[in-house]
């Protein structure tokens, strides 16, 4: 499967809407994630106070991003780790390749990292003779299928277990054809069998980081499979790749955000594993990497600071906004043709991909506001989408037909007498067209409306007319 582009969103969405397997998978967003989150929030009690605390922690960190990052770097270096700054995706890829070449690495295990998807690391490493192996189960499955992730925390969410079994049969060529892969547990065991060997053979491990703590110089990851720990502990070299915005003041702040993250993401009070990474193995430690590198990616993040979209940098990548988005729930993640999908994708992508390229992401929203309501750090996602629409409109990138239509309509709306005349005429005409049946079936304009709906006929006279002539 070739990944689609953001511009192809309407066609991809069209195909997704009639994909019955996808429909079944997406239904699990409600039964699996949304319900889990709701139960976890109820168990906790005052989640609203915690959300407010989370927002404040993230805002504090973003307002002192430079000094916190410098403190983080000092702490990591003091324990023998190395910190690399990458302005964009290319710099990050080059830094990582250089580290791998210098350590003579070939086989690279990877923990789940959206930033590595953002910079398209795997195809780059493969093109340069490396062998990257995804070790998160979902990532492993989609790597075999050569697909991008369809969800921030559940990359293979769009697949049925039958599709996964089929993928394993195709890729694991030594697999006994008589072995049953019907159960989820047998699928997990099969992936585990394959991955154990990879963990042991790996020369280097690459993980992301959910949070960076400035005071302690710690990088923190959460996983449920323990793959993050095997990825970082067993190989000689460990590289942490993450975005500069992930830093917060200290581990106390991290602990608050962890409470929000796992409950919002999977509905867990806490994930199975929380790993705090401080640097290379020291003399007293039995295991751990000899070389420890942190690659901090900007890739447009810093230029958001000071804009109306800056609140998006608070994001902790829990995917609650995806799980509650009616649009994402209808068309799935692949329709977006981008690393980040759903509401958070709509807020991030214009900055990453360009306002015009990502225009469907920002426009394909009803502004229902559910995303902002569930966001653990209170990102006003519809407000940020609207900001990007305004940028699109002001730059003359909006479709000409829409700009023209809006212009005509606004011309009348600013002239009440003229507007009265038009609305009375339209009401009368539609009433006539509706006839006795009471609704209009089609018109040569407003194709988008009539493609899927009739229009209930107006009562005939406008309210303002009737009001002016009331007895």
């Amino acid at each position, binding site marked *: 499967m070739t990944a689609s582009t953001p511009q192809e969103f309407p066609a991809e969405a069209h195909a997704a*809407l009639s994909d019955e397997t996808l429909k079944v998978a997406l239904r699990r967003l409600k039964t699996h994630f949304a319900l889990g989150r709701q139960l976890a929030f109820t168990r906790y009690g005052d989640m609203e106070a915690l959300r407010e605390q989370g927002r404040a922690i993230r805002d504090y960190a973003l307002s002192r991003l430079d000094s916190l990052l410098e403190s983080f770097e000092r702490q990591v270096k003091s324990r023998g780790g190395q910190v690399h700054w990458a302005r964009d995706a290319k710099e990050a890829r080059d830094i990582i390749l250089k580290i791998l070449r210098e350590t003579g690495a070939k086989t690279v295990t990877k923990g789940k990292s959206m930033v590595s998807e953002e910079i398209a690391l795997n195809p780059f490493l493969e093109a340069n003779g490396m062998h990257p192996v995804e070790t998160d189960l979902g990532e492993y499955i989609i790597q075999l299928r050569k697909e991008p992730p369809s969800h921030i925390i559940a990359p293979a969410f769009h697949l049925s277990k039958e599709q996964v079994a089929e993928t394993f049969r195709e890729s694991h060529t030594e697999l006994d054809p008589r072995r049953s892969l019907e159960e989820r547990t047998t699928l997990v065991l099969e992936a585990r069998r394959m991955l154990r060997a990879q963990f042991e053979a790996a020369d280097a491990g690459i993980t992301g980081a959910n949070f960076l703590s400035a005071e302690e110089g710690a990088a923190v990851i959460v996983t449920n499979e323990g793959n993050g720990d095997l990825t970082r502990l067993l190989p000689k070299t460990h590289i942490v790749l993450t975005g500069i915005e992930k830093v917060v003041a200290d581990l106390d702040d991290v602990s608050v955000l962890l409470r929000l993250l796992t409950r919002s993401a999977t509905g867990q009070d806490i994930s199975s594993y929380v790993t705090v990474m401080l640097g290379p193995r020291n003399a007293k430690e039995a295991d751990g990497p000899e070389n420890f590198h942190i690659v901090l990616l900007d890739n447009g993040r810093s230029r958001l600071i000071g804009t109306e979209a800056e609140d998006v940098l608070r994001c902790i990548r829990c995917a609650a906004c995806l799980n509650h988005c009616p649009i994402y729930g209808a068309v799935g993640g692949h329709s977006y043709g981008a690393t980040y999908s759903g509401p958070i994708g709509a807020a991030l992508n214009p900055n990453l991909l360009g306002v015009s390229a990502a225009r469907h992401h920002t426009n394909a929203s009803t502004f229902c506001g*559910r995303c902002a309501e569930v966001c653990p750090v209170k990102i006003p996602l519809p407000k940020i989408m609207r900001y990007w629409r*305004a940028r699109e409109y002001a730059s003359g990138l909006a479709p000409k037909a829409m700009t023209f239509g809006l212009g005509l309509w606004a011309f009348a709306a600013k002239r009440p007498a003229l507007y009265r005349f038009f609305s009375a005429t339209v009401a009368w005409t539609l009433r006539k067209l509706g006839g006795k049946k009471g609704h209009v079936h089609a018109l040569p304009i407003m194709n988008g409306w009539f493609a899927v709906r009739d229009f209930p006929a107006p009562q005939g006279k406008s309210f303002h007319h009737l009001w002016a002539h009331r007895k």
Partner: protein
Amino acid sequence: MKPRVGLFVTCLVDLVRPQVGFAAVKLIELAGCDIEVPATQTCCGQPAWNSGADKHAADIARQVVDAFESFDYVVAPSGSCAGMLRIHYPELLKNDDAYATRARSLAAKSHELISFLVRVRGMKDVAARSNVRACYHDSCSSLRENGVKTEPRTLLASVNGLELSELKEPEVCCGFGGLFSVKYPEISERLANDKIADAQATGADTLLGADLGCLLHLAGCMEKQGKAMKVRHVAEVLADIHGPALGEPR
């Protein structure tokens, strides 16, 4: 002295369903207010604002401020138009020296109709009769921008003969979203179908709501698919104003 209320009719009520406007007038008068309808109003500017056409939206917002700032209250029979006045005007006009303060003061006295009746005027019941099994569609803007949830249910409970049942997923969007419904009709239709299925599963014969946009969209989808359910604005039922439902034969 009775409070003076300016009725923000909304462009859809003006064009498609004037009886919602008359229902609003009746209810607001029942709530002990004097009502006026400024003639210089047209639309709240949502289509422009949501499209990012900020200049058009600001021009229209200033026109609304001019027309309505002298009233004690501004009331709209629509959650999204009320949300526009209450939440988005202050944001939209924040850098306009002549209007920023006035927009904030207009926002503070603007209300969605049903929440105005119940919260501001303390209305607890209405004298209306309607022999229907109804379910209620919470529009996203009523629910999330205006915090309206219990108010329509309180008043509907007092309607003689009306039986109200609840949707399974009242907090999920119906897929209207203003121009979204025209820009992405297929996605919009999917969301409408889910909402219609939810409504039909309640066993109700009538779908009520407080936002004409959602209701036109849902009624229009039902008509196209030949699904029989009556769709009405909640104010009509509360004001005891009847006649054909949206899109019904006359």
